[in-house]
């Protein structure tokens, strides 16, 4: 694996794939790589948690293995599953050949379906893969408990086969929106970083990279506008993802600066409830875009 000397190296490397990180996130990713520990990323929706994992995988030139969490997630969906159909066929085949089958014949790797976590452990590429366990707060306590062995020791145990340990630990990134309080035992095993909404200068820089077609005055005024909107009393304050969508929308309209009529036409990108739409429309005057 590419060895990073320090956090700044991670920052530069991610910069090359157009993902801008601040010192905090760079340090967090650096230690996740260096210490081989899972990293728990929290933050408001749309702040770039999932994007961080994607960018890291891209920068390292390794696949991103993604596990989307939901309630009721079990071993069969997250770790492994036996290929029962093939097992049954093998049994029939053995019967027709008058052979005797034992457990050891049926529970081999040949009959094993890999699921994301096992796939990450058994990955044989030159660089360890990035495993993204997305929105862990949407899973239930049982699934958290299932993860402990993997997060702590980097291994998983299949009763019929034995324990698989990763030769190179995958880079594990967990994300959470805090819709549920995670268990301390899970937090203990992870490094933790809270991603903040970026400061204006960085937000502008991110927009420049992600929407290359947008003009400089448009980016400057949207950053300022979003800053103002985030101070309003909203149900869902626009995050970075919405801001990027919005600037893309404005730039598609061919806007070179921010004007009231364009804001109203593209408000769908940043206002996600009817109440928010009304609040934003009502405060346009106050934000300097009066009609």
């Amino acid at each position, binding site marked *: 694996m590419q060895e990073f000397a320090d956090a700044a190296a991670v920052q530069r490397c991610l910069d090359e794939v157009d993902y801008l990180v601040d010192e905090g996130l760079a340090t967090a990713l650096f230690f996740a790589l260096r210490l081989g520990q899972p990293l728990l990323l929290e933050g408001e929706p749309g702040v770039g948690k999932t994007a961080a994992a994607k960018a890291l995988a891209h920068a390292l030139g390794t696949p991103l293995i993604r596990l989307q969490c939901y309630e009721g997630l079990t071993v069969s969906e997250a770790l492994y599953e036996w290929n029962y159909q093939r097992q049954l066929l093998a049994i029939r085949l053995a019967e027709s050949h008058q052979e005797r089958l034992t457990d050891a014949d049926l529970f081999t790797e040949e009959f094993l379906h890999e699921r994301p976590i096992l796939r990450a452990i058994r990955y044989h590429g030159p660089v360890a893969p990035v495993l993204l366990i997305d929105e862990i707060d949407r899973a239930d306590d049982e699934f958290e408990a299932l993860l402990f062995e993997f997060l702590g020791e980097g291994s998983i145990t299949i009763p019929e086969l034995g324990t698989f340990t990763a030769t190179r630990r995958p880079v594990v990134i967990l994300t959470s929106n805090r819709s549920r309080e995670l268990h301390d035992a899970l937090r203990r095993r992870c490094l*933790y970083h809270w991603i903040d909404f970026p400061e204006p200068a960085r937000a502008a820089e991110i927009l420049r990279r992600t929407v290359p077609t947008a003009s400089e005055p448009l980016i400057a005024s949207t950053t300022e506008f979003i800053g103002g909107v*985030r101070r309003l009393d909203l149900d869902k304050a626009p995050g970075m993802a919405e801001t990027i969508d919005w600037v893309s929308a404005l730039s598609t309209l061919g806007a070179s600066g921010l004007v009231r009529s364009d804001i109203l036409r593209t408000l769908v990108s940043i206002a996600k409830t009817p109440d928010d739409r009304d609040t934003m429309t009502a405060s346009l005057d106050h934000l300097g875009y009066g009609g």
Partner: protein
Amino acid sequence: MMLRRTDRAAFAVALVSRLRAHGVRVGTTGLADFVRALEAAPPDSRSSLYWTARITLVGRHSELTAFDAVFAAVFDSAAGEPGSHRRSSLDTAPTRGRPDDSHAAWQGRSAGADEPGSGLPWLTLPPATGYSEDSDSPFAVPQRLPSEVAGLADIPFEQLTAAETELLGRWIETALQVWPTRTSRRVAVGASGHRISIRETIGRARRTGWEPIHLVRVKPVERPRRVVMLCDVSQSMQAQAAAYLHLMRALVLVSDAEVFAFATTATRLTTVLAHRSAEVAIEQATSKVVDRFGGTKIATNIQGLLSSLHGGSMRGAVVIIGSDGWDSDSPAELAAAMARLRRRAYRVIWMNPRAAAPDYEPRVATMAAALPYCDAFLPADTFRSLLGVVAEIGRTRGTSPEKRARREFSRPPGADPGALVRVASPK
């Protein structure tokens, strides 16, 4: 290079013990990670040391403020430099309850010394006495009333002494037996299930020469449904506040409930009320709510909670609001807040101490505005009526979503508030 010739272990332990003293929960694993991180990349500036320490030692967002304070105090050559980054102009959180405000904002001064004093921790096995407040209900199961308690249960809250209130609080706790459930996405083996689990079936087939003879079925697991209670502790609710606190404590102790008290601002009481001792719990709760017996802003508080971190806990929950409906926000605002709450919650139950009067009508404009969005509107002036609320919470069990949709379809919100007074039971 910072920390030249420093004993890393001693340095880390000193910093961690200071952090622990200020309420940052750092475990041994975190400490070990910190030392390994210091070794892997010796920090060369205050800011790199800050991030190294923060990423390895702090495990939750709520502890970041305490961490920043300790870090600044220890290395205060440039106090607030990395920390100030967190409060950059774009990051100004909206004014009302954003993440963890509910924890940070109310480090209360103690208010009010009129709370329950000594407890009487005894209960005798009673003659079975019927609970028949709402006799047409199919759930009117006889409740066992301790005889001493039975007499007190009908006395309005304002005439009870603190000790009696506490005794009745314990009794409510024992009465909370039936808890609402929801169908989860997790499955377990069950004969009545209608999906076949191949994993289990093949596992069983091992015993029969790999011939799957018994089909093993799985069915969804029932999980306790979350209950969220919001209790009004404003001036007009002074007499009921203590009793409602006891009900909230019972809810928290019995299962997964989130409870909040509000007057002008909302305070999360879930953690303090979970204390083993009722006396301590109520005392802590009282001192935590700094704005009790002030004005009321129901709409603002509901909206605030819905937008906050705890807004997620109301999704699919049974939400109980204990208030007399006097609100200094406008009826339109309350209606908007209740509509939003109604969309998010599974059931909304409003308990109102004034509703017990036989000729009660929701004349308060705000109460009338909120009513169309309530599934049930219950009186709550005595402990016996609180029992009715408890029964109503339990009644949520087994109502299928289809049934609920049908019910809602047949009674569109805003139809006739008057028709909802007393109980709108799901039949």
